[in-house]
């Protein structure tokens, strides 16, 4: 459900991260050439300084020998350039501890007999051959220890190793935060729109996005368009339903007159016409019933109106309806039975629930066999709190391929058509809508063999 959020967020974040990484790489690759060659070009300059240090060293050695040199070394600060005099490849005057890199460096100068520069992760150094006071050949080296920066010992040489951990983490977190905010600002209005669309699709035609999405961007325009569309659809549905309602109401006027004319005719004609007049009366009654049910259906489908919510005791309501239906069924040698349960309360419209329940029970009475009883059961699931109303008739049942269609208005099963049983074909549609508007579901009947 939040996949759009996740996709945009990851997309942004990845883009930012990759762009950042790429820039770092480009910067690394195009950094100024600070290599051995670069240092070698500066040897000319370095040699002058190195010569000065070497002259000092020779002066100390000439004046005081190795002891003076050792004393000199002791006076040096830890951070100052460290001079060392190699008398052999791995020997130095004064036996000062020498880093391995310096020994290797000195070896190179012994071999090349030329001034050289050293770059290592820790040190910067210069060295040259030197003729010692005793006439033997040595090597003079000055080492500069590089300053130790936390996480970066060589800032001038591209991304140092620490960059991959510390700075990258900070970069990712800040980038992530910005991306998160950006994505939210994009997806939050979409989510609001989606909620509105879904409510609208569920039949709540009063839904509007309204001021839920501010600003003047494309999304707020879309929200305003949605509202305009919703307004238009609600108007259309309203006028269509009003028309249907008016037609149904208007049909009743001629039907009322027809009923009176029928009774007037009964008075004036002989018994030979009685059967035909009875038939007219029955058809008029059926028409009237259909009009009534159409109005009920209309009421239930009016999505622009919210159904009123009150607490309804279903157990009391069902037993009331069952009493009425049983009363009606007795004339046709059928019965309706219901065992009262404890109070089962639901939130909803008492009137709409009544119409739904009444129609499903009357449908059962209509199709149950003569002398049989329609059984009504009311149950409540202890865990979910959902309430079930089960109506069982002892009729012919419904063919499997017709099960899905019986809740459509005016759909008549093959059995219903064959028997000309005179139902309106709207009853179960009312049931389905009444239940749906209360957040429930109508399931088609299952066939049970007679026991």
């Amino acid at each position, binding site marked *: 459900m939040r996949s759009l959020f996740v996709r945009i967020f990851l997309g942004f974040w990845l883009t930012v991260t990759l762009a950042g990484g790429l820039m770092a790489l480009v910067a690394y690759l195009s950094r100024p050439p600070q290599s051995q060659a670069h240092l070698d070009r500066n040897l000319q300059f370095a040699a002058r300084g190195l010569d000065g240090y070497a002259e000092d060293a020779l002066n100390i050695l000439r004046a005081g020998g190795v002891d003076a040199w050792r004393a000199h070394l002791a006076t040096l600060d830890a951070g100052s350039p460290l001079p060392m005099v190699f008398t052999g490849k791995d020997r130095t005057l004064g036996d000062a501890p020498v880093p391995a890199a310096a020994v290797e460096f000195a070896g190179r100068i012994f071999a090349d007999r030329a001034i050289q520069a050293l770059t290592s992760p820790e040190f910067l150094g210069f060295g040259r051959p030197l003729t010692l006071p005793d006439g033997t050949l040595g090597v003079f080296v000055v080492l500069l220890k590089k300053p130790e920066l936390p996480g970066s010992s060589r800032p001038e040489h591209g991304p140092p190793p620490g960059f991959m951990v510390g700075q990258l983490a900070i970069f990712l977190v800040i980038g992530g935060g910005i991306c998160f905010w950006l994505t939210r600002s994009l997806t939050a209005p979409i989510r609001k729109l989606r909620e509105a669309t879904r409510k609208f699709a569920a039949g709540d035609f009063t839904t509007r996005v309204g001021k839920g999405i501010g600003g003047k961007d494309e999304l707020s325009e879309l929200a305003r368009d949605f509202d305009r569309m919703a307004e238009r659809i609600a108007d259309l549905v309203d006028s269509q339903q009003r028309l249907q309602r008016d037609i149904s109401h208007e049909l009743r006027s001629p039907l009322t007159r027809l009923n009176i004319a029928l009774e007037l005719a009964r008075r004036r004609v002989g018994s030979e016409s009685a059967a035909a007049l009875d038939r007219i009366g029955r058809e008029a009654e059926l028409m009237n019933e259909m009009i009534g049910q159409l109005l009920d259906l209309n009421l239930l489908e009016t999505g622009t109106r919210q159904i009123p919510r009150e607490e309804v005791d279903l157990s009391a309501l069902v037993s009331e309806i069952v009493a*009425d239906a049983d009363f009606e069924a007795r004339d046709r040698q059928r019965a309706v039975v219901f065992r009262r349960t404890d109070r089962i309360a639901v939130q909803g419209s008492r009137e709409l629930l009544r119409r739904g329940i009444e129609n499903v029970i009357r449908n059962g009475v209509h199709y149950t066999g003569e002398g049989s009883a329609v059984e009504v059961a009311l149950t409540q699931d202890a865990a979910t709190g959902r309430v079930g109303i089960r109506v069982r008739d002892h009729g012919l049942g419904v063919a499997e391929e017709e099960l899905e269609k019986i809740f459509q208005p005016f759909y008549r099963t093959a059995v219903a058509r064959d028997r000309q049983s005179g139902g309106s074909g709207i009853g179960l549609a009312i049931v389905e809508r009444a239940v749906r508007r209360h957040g429930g579901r109508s399931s088609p009947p299952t066939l049970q063999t007679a026991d």
Partner: protein
Amino acid sequence: MNRILVIDDDIELCELLTDYLTPEGFAVETIHDSPTGLARAVGGGFALVVLDVMLPGMSGFDVLRQLREKSRVPVLMLTARGDDVDRIVGLEMGADDYLPKPFNPRELVARIRAIQRRVEAPGERVEGTGAIEARLTVGDLELDVSARAVWRDGVAVDLTSVEFSLLEVLLRSAGKVILREDLVRKVLGRRLSPYDRSIDVHISSLRKKLGHRLGPHERIKTVRGVGYIYAKPGINHDA
């Protein structure tokens, strides 16, 4: 003379009703607009008024409300079928009965006669032994049967005609369960038909006007699926 006023804007329907009702012994006058209908109903000296709810302009309810301020003439409302709110409002406002359109005119005649029986011969339909008392006192209520007036703790209570008849039946059987179908037969003068809640509407109005409780008890207790019982002072029916 059994003079009846029909107020309905459907002119043809009115003609048909006149044709049907005249041989039944009614003198029918028909009016097609509300203001004239109201004026005639107030001053015409009719035995009964048949009033359509769906009148253009001033609705049947408005006519009924204004009529009840001036007259107690029995009113039978013609309502749209299935419109329970219309029915309940009409009954609460003092209509004596209602009939949903389209109706069978035989049923209309039966209801007109039932209303007239109740209004013309108060107390007669009550199954009692021998003479009907003119005054009836139960608990905090006092009924004057011939004047059709009620007092609660000495204060007059304004009841509609049907409510009075219903209360009378309830009080005469105070402490005993009365079946709904018996109430319908005795008070409304007809058989109980399924999905007909008129009697329950009248009971609910009575409760509102008289108060829901009588001392520690429920004044009119519902025996669900069976009927109603009026609390007899001193007897606990809650148990």
